[in-house]
């Protein structure tokens, strides 16, 4: 294994992503958590670039680091008059869950450890966006349309749900 720039970059990005995740769990203030989350999302975008997925990386930054984080911030602001996340749930549950998760991780890691597939030369990085566009508009046209419908439904649903029902109350 050579100590290449790619390797270095990936290590740093991974480290930042993990630290972001850990901070997400351990910070007290919710807003701080969101900031930690942004770090994670951005470094994941970096990882995508390393994996020759430039378009996905761009979308990641746009949607996650941008849109989702902002939505979350709005959610926090709208719902939370007090900031601290209070006494967390039971200690034992945490411990048991931690053990369970570690076990799960271990089991999955066994699979990853044994992941040994010969690398094949790919052309993903060349005209990545165009490849994606071609795939989406030819092979995946129907799922794509479904996704648009889904987004529409989500949009309307979110509006309906979040809309205050005061007006109806006033009418009656």
């Amino acid at each position, binding site marked *: 294994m050579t100590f290449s720039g790619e390797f270095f970059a990936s290590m740093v990005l991974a480290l930042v992503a993990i630290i972001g995740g850990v901070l997400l769990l351990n910070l007290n203030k919710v807003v701080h958590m969101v900031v930690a989350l942004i770090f994670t999302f951005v470094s994941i975008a970096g990882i995508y670039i390393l994996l020759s997925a430039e378009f996905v990386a761009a979308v990641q930054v746009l949607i996650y680091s941008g849109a989702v984080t902002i939505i979350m911030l709005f959610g926090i602001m709208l719902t939370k008059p007090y900031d601290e996340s209070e006494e967390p749930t039971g200690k034992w*549950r945490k411990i048991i869950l931690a053990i*369970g998760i570690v076990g*799960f991780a271990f089991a999955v890691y066994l699979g990853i450890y044994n992941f040994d597939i010969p690398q094949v030369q790919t052309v993903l990085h060349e005209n990545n966006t165009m490849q994606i566009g071609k795939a989406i508009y030819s092979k995946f046209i129907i799922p794509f349309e479904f996704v648009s419908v889904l987004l529409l439904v989500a949009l309307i649903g979110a509006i309906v749900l979040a809309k205050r029902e005061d007006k109806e109350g006033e009418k009656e």
Partner: protein
Amino acid sequence: MENAWLIPLFPLVSFVILLLIGKQLKERSAYVGILATFVSLVFSIVVLFQRFFEPTYSAKFNWLTIGDLHITAGFEVNQLNALMLFIVSLVSFLVHTYSKGYMHGDERFSVFYVYLGLFTFAMLGLVISPNLLQTYIFWELVGLGSFLLIGFYFYKEEAKAAAKKAFIMTRIGDVGLFIGMILLFWQTKSFEYSEIFKAVNAGQVSGTMITLTAILIFVGAVGKSGQFPLHSWLPDAMEGPTPVSALIHAATMVAAGVYLVAALFPLFLASKTALLTIAIIGAFTAIFAASIGLVQTDIKRVLAYSTVSQLGYMMFALGSAGYVAGVFHLMTHAFFKALLFLAAGSVIHAVGGNQDIEKMGGLWKKLKLTGPLFLIGTLAISGVPLLSGFFSKDEILAAAWEGGHPILFLLALIAAFFTAFYMFRLFFLVFTGEFRGKDEKHVHESPGSMTFPMIVLGVLAIVGGYVNTPWFGSYLGDWLVQGNAKLGSGHAEGPVWIQLAATLFSLGGSFFAWLIYGKRSVSRDWLSGKGGILHTILLNKYYIDEFYQMTIVAISKGISYLFRFIDVFLVEGLVKLVTSIIQGLGKLGAKLQSGQVQTYGAVAFLGLAVLVVIFALTGGYLR
């Protein structure tokens, strides 16, 4: 004789007709019943005479098939059956006639005749049955008839209790008969009397088995014939109308036990133990019941205990191998006891329903016909010479002497003394002295329909004994044992002093009663004063009922409550336990459904994690 099976059918027809249209016929129902029994009587007399000259006739058909077993039903006319047919149809005809007067004015008049018809049918059916099963069937049916008639005044609590008691106590005996019958069946593969005797005589049945079945069957007879210890229903059964007491509880049904033992006599003869048991129970019952009869004050109860005592006599005779003596006494007893009951009914009728002898007295002048007839009955039952009871009692004592049970013989003699005493006590208290009740003016003689049967019975009570006497010849006895030497000789030869002793004892009893109750030269309190405790015990019938109440009834109640305890606490408790476990599980499940989505997720994930780890450790996808 081929048509003997018709005899029970006439009362059955009467039963059915009256059941359907009795309400419309009202008191005319009596004519239907009387006519039916009269036809039966005529047929019975014809059959009886035919039987004198012809051999036994029997017929049968398949009643029930169980695999290869064919259970038959049919009828048979042998000597005993023919005689019983005659006795039963005669008494029943007379009682039907008598009831017309006695039950006059009762609103359930026709129902009474319905029951009488049913009973007569069953009783006649019983005596012509050729096999044990059929006997058992009719045996139970007469029990039903008796039960219905005892409970005829259903609105009286005493009648209700007496009917119940009669049914249940006889049922206890019946179960013995039931078991004995079935055991005997599996031993001999037949219910037919003839087959059973054949098997027993051929030695196919082991000795213990014979003894066991004989005693079990005797238990049935004990129940029906009111022998100790199942006697106490019979006096209580006097709650029924008096004609019923005469018909069922004196002449016919209670004698069925004796009849059963007589009919199965060859079986009993095969077991010494069984015979001895019968003799002991019979003799004990004879003296036991007689002693109670000494102090009772209810006219019908005195007669009832007398019946129990006389039935004990018959059993004692049979137990002493005196087949003829037992059957003979059965016959004479039917006459004079039915007479006594009918006369007692006439007395009760005369004094307006009162049955307490302390409130009677001086009726001899008022009841010109009933009085002498009652006296005839009293003389006959006391064994005063020249009347029927004398001959049959004498026969029994002779048979007992022959049978060789000196102690039992002595008991029987004392019982004879008691009998004479209480019967004359009854007679003197009722008919002599001053009237002690109220309303003397209303005392009147009974109508003709009631006196006619009494006269017939009175005649028979006098002459009935002459068919079998040591002086003129034992026609009845010889005829009864004809063709069946095993049953013993037709006449028991006893020394002459037995006759003398019997006469002496019975006359002594009568005289003693006269001293106390007739001439009153001895104070009435002499007895009760001297033996105060004894008197109380006798008056309370040896506390047998109380004893049963405290033991058997209490025990079965106790068992019932025990079972209820088991049922309520153990069974229900077990069910509760199961349901509560399931409910607990359900509650637990409900608790888990806390609505905490996160917990659900955690549990679901942990489950997955466990599965995945197990999968990984066992090498799952790595293989």
